């Protein structure tokens, strides 16, 4: 069949419709955002290293926590999973590309637009030209409506653009998975990464529009005299929180379900056993997705909901631990009596299982309404969601990157450096986040640039862990650079007997694959 010549130069990247090139752009973009958001975390930790104010003004500190959260959630974690989906889903299901390739390119290029607007606000703030968003990544009304700085309007439109990007990306993923599978690839034969992404994409299409609705109402309250979140006109600021968390809770599963898929792919390879309980993994993922729609108010136990409301959301939240427990059990059962080896992707995966479970258990503690009323808005919450997002989502992305890098680049990475990256990250991340549980239980509030003296020692060590974790990530850049430049040539299988269609094509994967669909037995 006729092939258009592969263009070169920057136009190749600007105009591409190829899922591998778009996947690479997503991954590199998310890596860049990871460092930008990480730099903000370093500012936060530098300020909190000692009690008292030394480095930044409180308002700038607020801008740092806000934009750190927004950039990490929407700019680092989500695009990294979309990048993996772009690269791997067509390869895993034997499709020639994503179903709607031009839309795919659009979804990507909207992200630099959206984050350009957001980062521009921070640069302006740094130059003293007006505050960046400073109301926390959850942008609760009235902080973001009556009291939001002028940059809030740019932030609102930036969120709209991110939303378009996510929805279009998710539509593409769903259509690809449902319509583009190779003959014989039945739903229950799909790799779990594909399954978890199918469900994630559904969640995205269901809740990102709700976020768009929330920021739209914000814009109207700010400028057009409406009273959605203003009790004087019959509205309710708590309604903002309901709408936000109706989006926000499925959103946190959007950031972890693909990770479950990655771990479920990697552990069987290095345990040399098929995944234990494939079907139960699928059902557990679907159950988590379903439950994610009816637990949102557990973020709001202190706003004065009716007792029945608090009870309902508490029980529903605790129910989530059942399907999650099924997953953790299945991963451990897969490793049980396996012929295990500990290559770098496996190290990250095992760390994921252990550390994500810690995050899950602290989540269970937070689910208990009366206990949460003590933990609410303390560093305990910060510890909880960093365990699930950093040692959960980010570690799974590293596991995936190390697992598939040889397939992408055709070269093996430098194992010694990669192991150094793993151990440095593993140790520093725990020095960073584990003590946060204790300062949180001691009731140190989050998002505050200063603290009482009794938290000083812990915060010093948390900051040391933070800087060490930040520096450790630079090792990854070195590994990545070396791997792209050269190294030992990878075979098409890369690992020992891995499962999946992606290992039947050469390494590096040619630009176009599966133009004629393979047949799956």
């Amino acid at each position, binding site marked *: 069949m006729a092939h258009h010549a592969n263009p070169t130069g920057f136009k190749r990247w600007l105009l591409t419709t190829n899922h591998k090139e778009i996947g690479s752009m997503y991954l590199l973009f998310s890596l860049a955002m990871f460092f930008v958001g990480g730099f903000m975390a370093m500012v936060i930790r530098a300020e909190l290293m000692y009690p008292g104010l030394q480095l930044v003004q409180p308002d700038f500190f607020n801008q740092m926590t806000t934009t750190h959260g927004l950039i990490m959630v929407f700019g680092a974690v989500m695009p990294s999973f979309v990048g993996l989906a772009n690269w791997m889903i067509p390869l895993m299901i034997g499709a020639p590309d994503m179903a709607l390739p031009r*839309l795919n390119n659009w979804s990507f290029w909207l992200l630099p637009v959206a984050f350009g607007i957001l980062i521009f606000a921070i640069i302006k703030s740094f130059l003293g030209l007006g505050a960046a968003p400073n109301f926390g990544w959850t942008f609760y009304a009235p902080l973001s409506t009556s009291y939001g700085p002028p940059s809030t309007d740019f932030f609102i439109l930036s969120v709209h653009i991110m939303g378009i990007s996510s929805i279009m990306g998710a539509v593409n993923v769903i259509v690809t998975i449902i319509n583009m599978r190779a003959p014989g690839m039945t739903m229950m034969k799909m790799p779990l990464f594909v399954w978890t992404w199918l469900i994630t994409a559904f969640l995205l299409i269901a809740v990102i529009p709700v976020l768009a609705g929330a920021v739209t109402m914000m814009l109207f309250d700010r400028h057009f005299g409406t009273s959605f979140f203003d009790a004087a006109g019959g509205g309710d600021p708590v309604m903002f929180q309901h709408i936000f968390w109706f989006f926000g809770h499925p959103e946190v599963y959007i950031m972890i379900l693909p990770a479950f898929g990655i771990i479920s792919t990697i552990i069987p390879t290095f345990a040399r056993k098929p995944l234990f309980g494939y079907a139960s993994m699928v059902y557990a993922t679907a159950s988590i997705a379903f439950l994610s729609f009816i637990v949102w108010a557990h973020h709001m136990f202190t706003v004065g909901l009716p007792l029945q409301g608090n009870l309902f959301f508490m029980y529903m939240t605790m129910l989530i631990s059942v399907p999650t427990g099924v997953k953790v059990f299945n991963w451990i059962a897969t490793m049980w009596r396996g012929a295990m080896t500990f290559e770098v992707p496996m190290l990250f995966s095992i760390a994921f299982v252990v550390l994500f479970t810690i995050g899950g258990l602290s989540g269970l503690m937070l689910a208990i309404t009366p206990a949460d009323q003590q933990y609410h808005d303390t560093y305990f919450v910060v510890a909880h969601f960093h365990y699930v997002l950093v040692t959960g989502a980010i570690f799974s992305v590293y596991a995936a990157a190390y697992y598939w890098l040889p397939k992408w680049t055709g070269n093996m990475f430098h194992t010694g450096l990669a192991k150094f990256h793993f151990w440095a990250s593993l140790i520093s991340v725990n020095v960073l986040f584990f003590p946060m549980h204790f300062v949180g239980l001691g009731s140190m509030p989050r998002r505050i640039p200063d603290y009482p003296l009794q938290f000083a020692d812990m915060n010093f060590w948390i900051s040391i862990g933070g800087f060490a974790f930040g520096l450790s990530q630079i090792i990854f850049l070195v590994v990545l650079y070396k791997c792209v430049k050269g190294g030992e040539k990878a075979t098409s299988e890369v690992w020992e007997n891995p499962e999946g269609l992606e290992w039947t094509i050469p390494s590096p994967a040619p630009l176009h694959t599966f133009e004629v669909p393979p047949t799956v037995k």
Partner: protein
Amino acid sequence: MAAQTEPGKTPLYYVPAQSVWPIYTAIALLIIAIGGANFIQQSTDKVANEGTLGGATFAVGLFALLVCMWGWFRETVVESLGGKNSTQLSISYRMGMGWFIFSEVMFFAAFFGALFYTRLLTIPWLGGAGNNAMTHELLWPQFQAFWPLTLTPDGRTFEVMSPWGLPAINTLLLVTSGVFLTIAHHAIKVGDNAKVLKNLAIAIILGFIFMGVQAYEYHHAYVEMGLTLNSGIYGSLFFLLTGFHGLHVTIGAIMLTVMWVRTAKGHFTPENHFAFEAAAWYWHFVDVVWIFLFFVVYWL
């Protein structure tokens, strides 16, 4: 319809070559966002951004977006007419449109959710229901909880829109328009283009009349009833829901108009008319949203 392939061979899925339109569209949205935010700030005098041409930038962005849509859709139409759309690709397009409409449903769900939350919880609570007696006593003790809320807690008052005037006529207009569209849809499936053109034209005209009536209703609300965006939560929800619906009717009517032109040019065959079907689905979606609106915003 589909690219004819030799018997016994699976047609290959068409992966388009590089395209300039996605990145141009992204840049158009960038211009719209920057211009739009400046424009809103300048025109509502919340912030004085002297020296930035918000309105003009916004207009340039909108124009760029229209050009991009023209170019992008043109590219796909040329492909379709060039026989590059396999059955599998047309299934992708249909699924894509279906999921897009689902995302729109969820966008409206947020606003309907706000309406239900306000009516079922916020208003009674402000009036002291449940465990909110002290809230009521301390904030606005004179506040009376009822719906539609024509007197806000801080004392703004206005009239509400009755369902049995223009809104009922509008319901009739949109539903009738949907019926004519369905007749046109059946006609396209049997290749009767003359019948498609006639019925589609009626559907489009009814849509435009709907928009005219809606504009008149807004004018009436602002000038004679004192019902504005500033009219507390009732006015906020009323204009947000009907306004976004009206925006979608406008988009849908433009889509249908384009379909009329394309039908006249003979683009559609009984087998290959995805664009028509997508526009029709969108129109029916807008129809259904209106029926919900009529019941819960105007009537109940």
